[in-house]
């Protein structure tokens, strides 16, 4: 029956709005990168603790790739959410004798030996995103990222500024240290009461239903903070169904968050600028190889938190759509 309907609509069934055509028009305006230097073609590798299909790490990668094009770098990337496998990936890049290594230290203890082996082999290492407190001790040149606790504190202050009394912190990955630090940071500075809610991040309808249930159970909640951009939209829908008046705020950006901020369905977003983490890591490695430069004297270089509100949303929408914010 549906196949018949398909034939009936035929190939003329094009959408005159949205879709790839609209995107191509946007892209035509965007500039394409080209190598800006004539240093040798070094090989830099990046190993992260990202799970499969994580939007956040996609943005980190696109930043790294942009810098790699500019700096004439051959850029390699691998990831595993299992600490042991992440360490093995580092070892294999050390064995490959790459010219620079970028690693994340979400589970520092498991990563310690592998990073030491890289440093001993004479490979410059830069840590990004997580692990600022141990980066220097492990022998890395510097750390680029956001302090999760500091980011959480910024959210707590913003909630206070908005006179919120009772907030909900939605964690989409149970046992993730960074998530706990974020919610812990919010708790530290927020004057009102903060509750944690754990949801199953790989099951979006379940995320929505859980937030819905929580809002129904406690109508006093006047702010919901999600820790990832895709979950903000689920929270918005949960709020509608539950008939709650809570303001939805989120960590990280994507096109939907940008439009949500613009239309007022979202209060604010806190951005740690993942593009910058990838871009700066590659660029700083290049600077080190070319000129032995080290930024920040080995102290962590912070990429966030930046609080994004309605005022910034219009400008950011374009960048989120091309996957760089």
């Amino acid at each position, binding site marked *: 029956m549906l196949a018949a309907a398909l034939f009936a609509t035929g190939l003329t069934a094009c959408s005159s709005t*949205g879709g790839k055509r609209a995107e191509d028009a946007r892209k035509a305006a965007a500039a394409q990168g080209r190598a800006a230097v004539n240093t040798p073609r070094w090989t830099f590798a990046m190993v992260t603790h990202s799970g499969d299909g994580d*939007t956040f790490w996609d943005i980190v990668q696109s930043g790294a790739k942009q810098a790699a094009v500019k700096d004439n770098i051959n850029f390699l990337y691998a990831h595993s959410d299992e600490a042991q496998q992440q360490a093995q990936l580092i070892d294999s890049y050390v064995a490959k004798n790459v010219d620079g290594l970028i690693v994340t230290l979400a589970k520092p203890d498991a990563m310690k030996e592998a990073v030491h082996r890289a440093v001993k082999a004479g490979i410059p290492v830069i840590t990004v995103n997580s692990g600022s407190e141990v980066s220097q001790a492990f022998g890395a040149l510097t750390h680029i990222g956001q302090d999760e606790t500091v980011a959480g504190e910024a959210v707590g202050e913003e909630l206070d500024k908005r006179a919120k009394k009772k907030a909900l912190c939605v964690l989409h990955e149970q046992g993730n240290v960074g998530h706990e630090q974020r919610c812990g940071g919010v708790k530290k500075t927020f004057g009102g009461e903060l509750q944690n*809610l754990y949801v199953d991040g790989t099951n*979006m*309808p379940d995320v929505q239903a*859980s937030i819905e249930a929580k809002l129904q159970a406690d109508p006093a909640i006047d702010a919901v903070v999600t820790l990832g951009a895709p979950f903000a939209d689920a929270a918005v829908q949960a709020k509608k169904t539950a008939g709650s008046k809570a303001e939805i705020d989120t960590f990280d950006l994507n096109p939907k968050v940008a439009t949500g901020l613009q239309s007022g369905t979202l209060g604010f977003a806190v951005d740690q600028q993942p593009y910058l983490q990838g871009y700066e890591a590659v660029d700083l490695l290049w600077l080190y190889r070319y000129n032995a430069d080290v930024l920040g004297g080995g102290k962590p270089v912070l990429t966030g938190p930046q609080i994004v509100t309605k005022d910034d949303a219009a400008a950011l929408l374009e960048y989120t759509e091309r996957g760089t914010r």
Partner: protein
Amino acid sequence: MSSTAPADDLDHVDERLLRTSPLKKLLARPELGSVVGALAVFLFFSVVADSFLRASSLGTVLYAASTIGIMAVPVALLMIGGEFDLSAGVLVTSSALVSSMFSYQMTANVWVGVGVSLLVTLAIGAFNGFMLTRTELPSFIITLGTFLMLTGLNLGLTKLISGTVSTKTIADMEGFPSAKALFASQVTVGGVDLKVTILWWFGLVAVATWILLRTRFGNWIFAVGGGADAARAVGVPVHRTKIGLYLGVAFCAWISGQHLLFSFDVVQSGEGVGNELIYIIAAVIGGCLITGGYGSAIGSAIGAFIFGMTSKGIVYAEWNPDWFKFFLGAMLLLATLLNAWIRKRVEATK
């Protein structure tokens, strides 16, 4: 045979023709244990969580149950037919990705993407069925292979085509509002917001129950699950039945996938991993035997309902969230144990 028959005046009657009381008939239903389990879970949360009994909460619990239940129905039928499908969870995501990306890349009316997705999803279901019947390998292995391949395809193709790991928004494209109305709308009944997935779920349970109990295909499913060789010996088309069951899983995965797409409009390509186990758990709580040949569609619905009540009841009860997964596991285990215990009691008094 006569030695085991009752020694009174029923001596000469075939045991299959014995009249059983309506109560005993009820007790012999496969979903009975899960009904008692569901009642226990319901009463428990009614007592410990005061917001659980509100009408709006019921809407939320039913929604949570329906998203599991839609897939638990065909998975239960497949289990009655003696097979597993470990690819069912990611197949839902694949289905949503196909409609979204086809519509977007071709700049086509959204309904064209939805139609293409149906064909692709059914083709994957047919692949599972054909591989199983041709190779005669265990379905565990076949669908584990499909599961891994689909997980990789979901990520790889999405990244290749869209450039990012999630799809682009299609909310501004033609056909979106009407598709959203069919797959992800919401109706208000007596002040309670009910999602359309609940209707899909009830409809599928009714159709599956009718197929199981009133059609020849239903008999084939029980026969194939009870013993494939015996079934083949009496002329049941075992291969066709199994392929049909996998097509059923694919069809429901398509419905779930479209719901996912049209309620959130953007699909994350890494989603769905692990959900296949939840569908199987719902079917098992609902009285399906892992070994096949026994179970019901209504049971799978009650299993999904128990799952929905438990996962959301914990939130309504406002328990310390650190223990969330523990409570969930304990509740599920208790419900299943109660289910098994009642079935044993019933079988003992037969």
